[in-house]
């Protein structure tokens, strides 16, 4: 299951086809002010449930946000560093969503 070459897990089978574009709208969002230790240096940050065009919900951070976030905002998936793992600081990459380019 691929999305423009990038694979990511979600859903009941933990992998599905996001349709290539990986665009969606903000279903809900929160500004995380008290995060877990792995995300302490990034706080505050936006976490969202994004409703993909195919209808699924996906849990992800919002990034490159300039100004206010609203439910219904159009967003698109990008690859970003999520955190670092363990004492050796291996970088964990994943997906985030940014405001969709017009």
């Amino acid at each position, binding site marked *: 299951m691929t999305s423009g070459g990038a694979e990511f897990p*979600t859903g009941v089978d933990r992998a599905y086809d996001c349709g290539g574009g990986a665009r969606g709208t903000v279903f809900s*969002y929160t500004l995380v002010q008290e995060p*877990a230790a792995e995300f302490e240096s990034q706080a505050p940050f936006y976490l969202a*449930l994004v409703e993909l065009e195919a209808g699924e919900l996906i*849990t992800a951070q919002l990034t490159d946000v300039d100004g206010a976030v609203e439910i219904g905002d159009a967003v698109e998936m990008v690859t970003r560093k999520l955190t670092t793992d363990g004492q050796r600081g291996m970088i964990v990459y994943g997906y985030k969503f940014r405001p969709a380019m017009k």
Partner: protein
Amino acid sequence: MGVSIVGVGMVPVREHWSKGLAELAAEAGALALRDADIGKVDALYIGNAYGATFNQQTQLGSLLAAALGLPGVEAYTSEAGDASGGVALRTGYLAAASGAAQSVLVLGVEKATDIVGPARWSARNVSLDAEIESINGATLTAMAGLLMRRYMYEFGLELSQFEGFSINAHRNGSQNEFAMYRNRLRSGAFIKAPMIADPVSLFDSAPDGDGAAAVVLVNSELAADLVPRPISIRGSAVATESLMLQDRADPLALAAVAKSTAQCLDQAGLTPAELDALELHDAFTILTALSLEAIGVSDRGRGWEWARAEGAGIAPNGELPLSTFGGLKSRGNPGGATGIYQAVEAVRQLNGQAGENQVPDARHILIQSIGGLGATVATHILSVPPV
């Protein structure tokens, strides 16, 4: 076979920095055994959620059986996140109901406050989906923020409309010596509280605490010989739904709350209107609002209405008493012990021992313990013996 509660015990919910996990547990367990006036039990079931990550401690069955002077007894932990207490009660209920055990001690314990801040959020995150939620920066509180904002959006609500749930909890908790935060909340303070994951604030969400609570269960025939007024478990059910909000067809419908409640009411032969009080899992006000809708005492989008007028309708003398000893919000949320605190509190209500928080003529009380945001839901109905 019916199951009854013949003894209860608990320690105050606090930051118990001078006591270890086993000490706390042994204190509550010994109180319950003394209350039931029995020296030993056939089985010990533990409710504990975060021993592995808060305390680097598992195998609490063996540890606590020894601490309680019950060598060799069948003993192990039931775990379902913050529903661990509720599912331990279910385990004990099944053992007693089946006849596999004549007597059972169900003991909830959590020692949360030895770690603080981001480290505790990380330790708590073992109850989320590791590969999809935690790795993206989620915490349970952040997920509650997502749920609450969507609810407010769909039904056009303001933050201030939830304050009554917290005001009621603290009003009741202020009169409970076992509660962790006995301060009262003034109207208006709620919306000014520091945000944790907006719209969920410090005054919206329940604080973690250290605590232990225990109940002794026996089959109901035996119970009558042990105590003058055994409290019966009239309903017992556990249901689950998707761990993650993103996998739910309707995130605002707590399907496992609805299912376990319906099963419990059916078993007890009761309707929601016959419940005299509810001890809900008020870890966040949004969980209370959505639980009231799933239980069937409010229509969709209207559960928040019980918070009106500083929660007048949910006070002990109101139409639908909630959180009668402060709930998770004011009594505190000692993780896997919380579901057992609810049971002990319900027994106090049903025995007329609730002091200023007494619900008049309480006969049937529903208690509900939730893991995640409704991922695991354990529901029980406790009742006074028939006249």
